């Protein structure tokens, strides 16, 4: 379960003064649900997710993740969260097995248990042939699988994905999408940020549109379609963000064309 209450983050920049990256964002994600955070670059997606993963401290407001407050018990939150982002890389000089074992140990799992879990994950993710090779020689797909195993070794109740498919080819992206669905099937609470419209359409149970640090619209795909009287996610997004319809849609909607 994730419950964000009035999450706010303000950065201070010498040149630009105060930057309100996230302002009063509240939402709720239930177990077995995928919440899609949709927004353009710089909308505040990463900052929001980093606050949920306790990498950043909220300036105001708070969130309860897997039963723990992010401000009061950040370490307990992290013990119950799996965080996967395009920016979370692997240690190149470690093997996949060493990488997974390291994170298992950091999560306080006994070595025997780490061994059985690694074997199971390697089997599920089909990592057998590269489990004992160094990560710096991996293809993108192999890296993704290792990262997934790394986030799952402590079997977290909450999964946070920050644009995990950025820069991936179709096959690697599909692995991720399948994995996110698997998480939902196992009853995990999932939050997923992206700027790709088709991904939210395919994947997310609830969609939150974030812009300029504020949550502009929220609901299931159907609810949003009704609210904005649009079918396409892209149109819904543009309307939610700008408060008006996109020019292409106006033309196709039959507005007088000379």
């Amino acid at each position, binding site marked *: 379960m994730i419950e964000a209450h009035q999450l706010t983050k303000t950065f201070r920049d010498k040149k630009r003064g105060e930057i309100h990256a996230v302002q009063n964002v509240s939402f709720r994600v239930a177990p077995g649900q995928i919440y899609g955070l949709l927004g353009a670059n710089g909308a505040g997606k990463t900052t929001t997710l980093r606050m949920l993963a306790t990498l950043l401290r909220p300036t105001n407001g708070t969130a309860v993740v897997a039963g723990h407050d992010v401000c009061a018990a950040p370490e307990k939150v992290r013990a119950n969260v799996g965080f996967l982002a395009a920016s979370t890389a692997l240690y190149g000089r470690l093997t996949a097995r060493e990488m997974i074992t390291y994170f298992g140990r*950091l999560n306080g799992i006994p070595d025997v248990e780490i061994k059985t879990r690694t074997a199971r994950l390697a089997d599920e993710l089909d990592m057998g042939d590269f489990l004992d090779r160094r990560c710096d020689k991996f293809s993108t797909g192999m890296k993704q699988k290792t990262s997934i195993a790394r986030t799952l070794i402590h079997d977290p109740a909450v999964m946070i994905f920050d644009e995990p498919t950025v820069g991936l080819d179709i096959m690697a992206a599909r692995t991720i999408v399948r994995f996110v669905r698997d998480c939902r099937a196992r009853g995990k609470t999932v939050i997923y940020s992206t700027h790709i419209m088709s991904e939210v359409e395919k994947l997310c149970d609830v969609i939150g549109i974030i812009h300029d640090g504020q949550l502009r619209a929220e609901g299931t795909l159907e609810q949003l379609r009704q609210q904005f009287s649009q079918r396409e996610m892209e149109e819904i997004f543009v309307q939610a963000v700008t408060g008006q319809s996109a020019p292409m849609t106006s033309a196709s909607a039959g507005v007088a064309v000379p």
Partner: protein
Amino acid sequence: MSASNIATVYRKELRDMLRDRRTVLSMIIVPTLVMPALMMGLGFVSYKIVRQARATAPTVMIIGGADSPRARNALAAHEKIKVVPTADDWKIRIAEKKVRAAVEIPAGFDAAVERAEPSTVKIYNHEGEMRSGFAVSEVRRFFTDYREKVITARLEQRGLPASFVKPFEIRTENVAPPERVGGNIVGGIIPYLFILLAFTGAMYPAMDLTAGEKERGTMETILCSPVARMDLVFGKFLMVLTASLATVLFSLLSMGLTFLIGGSLLARMGGGAAAAGAAAQAAAAAPSLPSLDPLGMVAVVGMVLPMAVLFSAALFTISLFAKSYKEAQSYVSPLIIVIIMPAVIGMLPGVELNLRLALVPILNVSLVSKELVSGVWHWDYLGLIFGSTCVYAGIALALAVRMFNREDVIFRA
């Protein structure tokens, strides 16, 4: 703070570092090679230069003295200098080191000596230049002897003994043990090298474990783990410290080995050289390793310990601020000057330890080490310096923890 978490982080960092060729190079190979190379090199090169300089007689030009053949010929016959034909541009030649010195014999010198009238012989030299110095001392010795002979002859004429003008002799003798003499000459360099190695050893891992991790994107990964930030700082810091101390330790070990093996090796090389040039009277000055007090050396390493903590924590903090490895390098490289400066001041002759200097980081260790390797133990200063360095190290470490907890530093974009 959890000791087992710190150990987990440390073990992982150690494994990671040992798989990196660059660390192994800076942590093990460089310090192992630098010490013997420096000590053998220093011993051998200085021996060779001095021997060569002594073996070849310095060139001297005689100015004037055409009417004083007695003095002139005696000087020309002196075998420890080589008299070259006079040229008008002798000043330039001395400055250009083509001629080492010039002697000006005043007009009517022989006659003046004969008549017991005062006169002055002038020697022109290139101040501070070693071979010019040799030439001057040879010419000076020659004229001192010449003067003595004149005096003895005059005394004999009057029936007086030589002791009439020389009632007693003056002689100088070194009583300091050889390691104290050695300590003063190379004593400044060897401990200073430990300081430099403690710094360079920490440099690479400090940058790699902070800015390097940010650059490669693993910093965010590790921050997602439930481990407290404090544990991460200590695990990483201990790794940097390990690298720093390993560098010092490897150099100490290789230095010990150099003393065990290198000494006899050098002596054999020197012995062979001396036998080959039998005429050269350099045999007495066979090349030798600088003699240092071994217990003092160990104490120097002990003094370097808190300094390694200071360096590791400071480098860790500074590189943590950088976004990339390159940026970290541009912050850290100028720091080498900061390390070199106090150490160089410590090596200057005449700079001695006092209460105020004992509180200046790096300089204090450099100065007290100079004393330690020559076998002098100032217990009060040792305590003060060790204590103050520990305090500085503690401050640097606290700063590192503080920086690691600042999200604007960790996520600096």
